[in-house]
């Protein structure tokens, strides 16, 4: 099969080689394809992408374009059919402690206090004693996300936004090399969601985190990311990598600027074109 290179906008093309030179990619996918033989579904086709250290990238596409599959492959939950998946110099062959993940639902367990929920990944991997030793680190993370004082509160008493903040702490406690975010705030109301996106930016800058966001909101992808990958369905492939040249830190005011609107419109045009082909 002919190997398709993702088209790049002039801005992205200009930016990518320089970022590649400045900082080596933390996460690199080359020619990743996924076919579900049993259902005969070609979910992903020849995906190339790389996440530079400390960068924020997003992938956007209509539902069913394979972005969930892509994320599962990157999380080590599903093996690719073809291609190489390399995180921090080592191929991803299963779940790893240097991969942090966050979902649409906070999924805190109601029989554990907030802090016990946060150290759960440590407890699973290193046991109860190691988890208790990390309580101080967990408290610091709670402070980082603005939840100080909620250590011993049960999740029932947290609001949706607070629960997602706790989920951020649980993701960060293992000090992962990459953060995989699967529509993390899409279950929240619009106002909370915008606010949490800004919080996420602040936390990522503070932690110098390398983040990868899956979303179906163009605005969300643009306001958070340095690079937005546009995906088209059947088979899922990256049709464009758009670099976002808005200055950091991003603010909610930028949402109403003409430049922001133009970027969003350009991505929407690209998506529409692909969706109805």
């Amino acid at each position, binding site marked *: 099969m002919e190997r398709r290179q993702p088209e790049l906008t002039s801005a992205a093309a200009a930016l990518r080689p320089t970022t590649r030179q400045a900082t080596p990619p933390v996460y690199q996918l080359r020619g990743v394809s996924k076919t579900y033989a049993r259902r005969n579904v070609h979910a992903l086709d020849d995906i190339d992408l790389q996440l530079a250290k400390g960068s924020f990238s997003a992938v956007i596409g209509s539902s069913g374009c394979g972005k969930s599959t892509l994320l599962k492959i990157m999380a080590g*939950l599903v093996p690719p059919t073809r291609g190489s998946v390399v995180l921090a110099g080592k191929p991803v062959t*299963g*779940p790893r402690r240097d991969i942090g993940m966050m979902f*649409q639902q906070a999924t805190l367990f109601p029989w554990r206090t907030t802090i016990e929920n946060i150290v759960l990944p440590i*407890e699973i991997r290193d046991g109860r004693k190691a988890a208790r030793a990390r309580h101080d680190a967990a408290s610091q993370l709670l402070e980082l996300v603005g939840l100080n004082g909620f250590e011993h509160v049960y999740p029932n008493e947290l609001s949706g936004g607070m629960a997602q903040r706790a989920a951020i702490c649980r993701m960060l406690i293992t000090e992962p090399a990459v953060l995989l975010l699967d529509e993390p705030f899409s279950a929240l109301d619009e106002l909370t969601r915008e606010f949490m996106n800004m919080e996420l930016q602040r936390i990522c800058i503070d932690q110098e985190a390398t983040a990868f966001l899956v979303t179906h909101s163009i605005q969300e992808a643009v306001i958070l990311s340095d690079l937005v990958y546009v995906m088209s369905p059947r088979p899922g492939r990256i049709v464009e990598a758009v670099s976002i040249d808005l200055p950091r830190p991003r603010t909610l005011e930028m949402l109403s600027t003409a430049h922001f609107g133009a970027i969003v419109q350009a991505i929407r045009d690209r998506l529409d074109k692909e969706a109805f082909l």
Partner: protein
Amino acid sequence: MNQVELAQAPSEATADTVWIEQVSWIDSIPRSVAMIGLFVAFVALWQFLTLLDVISPIILPTPLEVAYDLTVVGTNLLTGQYMLGALWITIKEVIYGFALALAIGFSLGVIVGETAFGERAVLPYLVAIDTMPKIAFAPLFVAWLGFDIASKVALAAFIATFPIVVGTAAGLHAADDNARMLFKTMGAGRWQTLVKMKLPTGLPHLFTGLKIASVGVMAGAITGEFLGGGKGFGELIRISASQLNTPRVFSLILYLSLVGLALFALVTWTQRRFVFWHRAEVRAAADG
């Protein structure tokens, strides 16, 4: 609309709007008053029916006769006479039966809920056995285990096992996809996923099964005594009934129901202690 417009908008509702919610008088009675009132009404109706002389006193004793017999049986129990020994035998049957059902039911529930083999191969047989009238097995248990308490324990456990299997298996299926995915990403093994996530998530289901079992185990023990003799409380009931001593039958049943109630209360209390988060969730769902 801006603020100036809001301020200048003519205000039609000057008086406070008072909204009176209509509550039927019968729903506004306090719980304790309602319960006691219903009990008094029931006893009064019962007394009235027996005084009418349409029903033979042998078939239906008056509430007063039953109340008197309650004191007789109560005295017998409190002074540690033969009835206390009989009650103790029945209590032992219930406790052993419940413990046995819990051990077997929980183990089978984990096999059915956790393994594909259990769900494919074991579950169909369990469903088939569950649909049988289990009380009909009593004579077999007596034949196998004799007239002592073992046969009653077996029948009680036999009846109580199935709701526990169902509760455990349903509980293990209660965890949602997000929780399963989260545990996978954390690199949790099967055992960790079971112990740290699936079992705690399923506890409310397990306790529902335990409550049904606590009722069934009582029925099993008494049925076993009816059909297999012995020296338990069920035997006392059977003898009293054969002597047409209906007030005694009534009072024995009432004392026996206290045992069943105590077991049910113990399960409920344990549930509140161990599943402390669940009530809060139900309340939150009701509010939301």
